[in-house]
């Protein structure tokens, strides 16, 4: 029922590639498929380059004005267009939250929001460019699907799926090169998260860009005598409650890891899913409220305790730290 992909032995990080080029190709294809598709940007063309070349009349750059960006998208969608809005995640989700909620999500319009640089992806650009509450904020919008793809292969699927779906959706994309976790031949779907590794006494539920670290941590835990499986989540809304419960049943330890705050994210949602239906040791690894130091994304993962080492410790416990 679920796509099962056994991973190769992990000895090092896999190759890296940005999500934007592949998403740009996907948007150009979707433009062919949906003659009413519009793509809107706010002074950033990387996502829409191919689409804009092929369909110049259906591409609009509104300038650096996110509230107007979403309002114009709402007007187009209200008139029957499918609309993709692609811009930097922190400014889209935080600044235009009211327009997103009232003008698009409440009336259930066909707008897909592509948030570039969600989470800590902008690294050294600092706090203004980080957004670790976007997924929870968008999941709180009525009737809105929320996707946080793992890598470029997953991002291609996520953008296609979100645009084909009728109704509002949000897809968090990386800003820089992301680790390529999947082979590219996986069958992604709305309701079947990828399962990496064999069932064991521990389960890591990892979201988006944390999956690579989670897989390496699971392998280290296995080497330390605690086999762990990774459930790689892309879809946060609708939340895969039954899939998580099913995967957790075989485990006595569940660790969630996300590049997001726990309160409105994977940690809280998983705890709600498991409450009263599962017993064991539960740890939620997430970004906390401390100000970020200057660092790239990997350094920030380490600072906030959502990277490989912390996940490993959460699985095997400090007293049996394999290091």
């Amino acid at each position, binding site marked *: 029922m679920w796509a099962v992909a056994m991973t190769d032995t992990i000895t090092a990080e896999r190759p890296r590639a940005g999500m934007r080029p592949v998403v740009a190709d996907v948007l150009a294809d979707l433009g062919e498929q949906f003659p009413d598709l519009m793509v809107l940007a706010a002074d950033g063309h990387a996502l829409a380059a191919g689409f804009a070349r092929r369909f110049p009349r259906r591409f609009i750059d509104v300038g650096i004005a996110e509230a107007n960006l979403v309002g*114009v998208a709402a007007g187009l969608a209200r008139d029957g267009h499918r609309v993709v809005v692609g811009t930097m995640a922190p400014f889209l989700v935080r600044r235009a939250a009211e*327009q997103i909620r009232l003008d698009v999500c409440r009336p259930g319009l066909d707008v897909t929001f592509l948030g570039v640089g969600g989470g800590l992806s902008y690294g050294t650009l600092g706090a203004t460019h980080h957004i670790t509450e976007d997924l929870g904020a968008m999941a709180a919008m009525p009737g809105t699907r929320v996707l946080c793809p793992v890598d470029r292969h997953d991002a291609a699927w996520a953008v296609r799926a979100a645009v084909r779906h009728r109704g509002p959706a949000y897809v968090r994309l990386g800003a820089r090169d992301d680790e390529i976790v999947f082979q590219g031949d996986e069958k992604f779907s709305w309701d079947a998260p990828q399962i990496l590794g064999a069932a064991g006494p521990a389960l890591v539920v990892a979201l988006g860009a944390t999956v690579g670290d989670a897989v390496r941590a699971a392998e280290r835990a296995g080497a330390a005598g605690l086999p762990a499986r990774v459930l790689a989540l892309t879809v946060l809304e609708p939340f895969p409650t039954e899939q998580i419960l099913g995967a957790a049943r075989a485990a006595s330890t569940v660790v969630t890891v996300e590049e997001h705050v726990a309160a409105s994210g994977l940690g809280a949602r998983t705890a709600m899913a498991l409450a009263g239906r599962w017993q064991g040791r539960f740890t939620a690894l997430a970004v906390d409220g401390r100000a970020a130091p200057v660092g790239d994304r990997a350094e920030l993962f380490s600072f906030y305790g959502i990277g490989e080492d912390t996940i490993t410790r959460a699985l095997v416990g400090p007293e049996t730290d394999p290091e």
Partner: protein
Amino acid sequence: MSDRNARNDAAPRVRDRTDVAAALRRRILRYAAGQAIHLGSSLSVVDILHTLGCRAGLGPATAGNRTRDRLVLSKGHAVWALYAVLAELGLLTADPPPRLPGHPPEGLPGIDVSTGALGHGLSIGAGLCESARLAGSDRRTYVVLGDGELNEGSVWEAAMYAAHRGLDRLTAVVDLNGMQQEGPTSAVLDLAPLDEKWRAFGWNVRTADGHDPVSLTAALDRAESQAGRPSVVLATTVKGKGIPFMEHSSAWHVGVLDAAQLAEALAAVDSTGGSDVGGGHD
């Protein structure tokens, strides 16, 4: 393409404009009997909305027509004026009337866009114009803004955008009653020189008496005859217009009428000479 015949059908044919203004106000006053509503700005904008509703061809036969002109009430709190207009135009006829929300809802015939948070309507109107232009339609979109609403920065994002894109089928009408919740707009956050601001943003600017359909229509006609840029009509109005004890008063920004106040207000409307024939009693 706009249906000019529908416009004529929807226009009031029997009653003169004094009668229409009075009938609209009777409806608004009755909405305020026993519930707090945004009275002052509903009374200031209602003649603008009626003129635009007729101009856009709003009526039972056209409400669901995708090619007709669009009307967006960006200052959604004045929805009671819109309800009164929809009722006058035959679009809100349930008797007794349904329980109506305090801002324009989804799904009510004649309401093209749900609004209520200020500063959203002009952007949505611009999007509707983009869509019409792509479809080769000359459909027009009217967006009604409050002057207090112009405090919102998003209005000016949309203003800059619409001019940059040459959206000449977009017409904004500002209900210039000079008041906002806590007092005169000049005291809260001064808008002057408002005509120069819009002009500097690249818009055709006209002025009108917002309570006079003839003045409004002339300003709209002149503004819309200029191609290549969006138009705005700065329509001077009186907050609480038609009810002496409410006029120019921010105290009636939100108000509820008791029986005595309702009677006094209705008597004031009756004294304007408008007959109560043809509507206003439901």
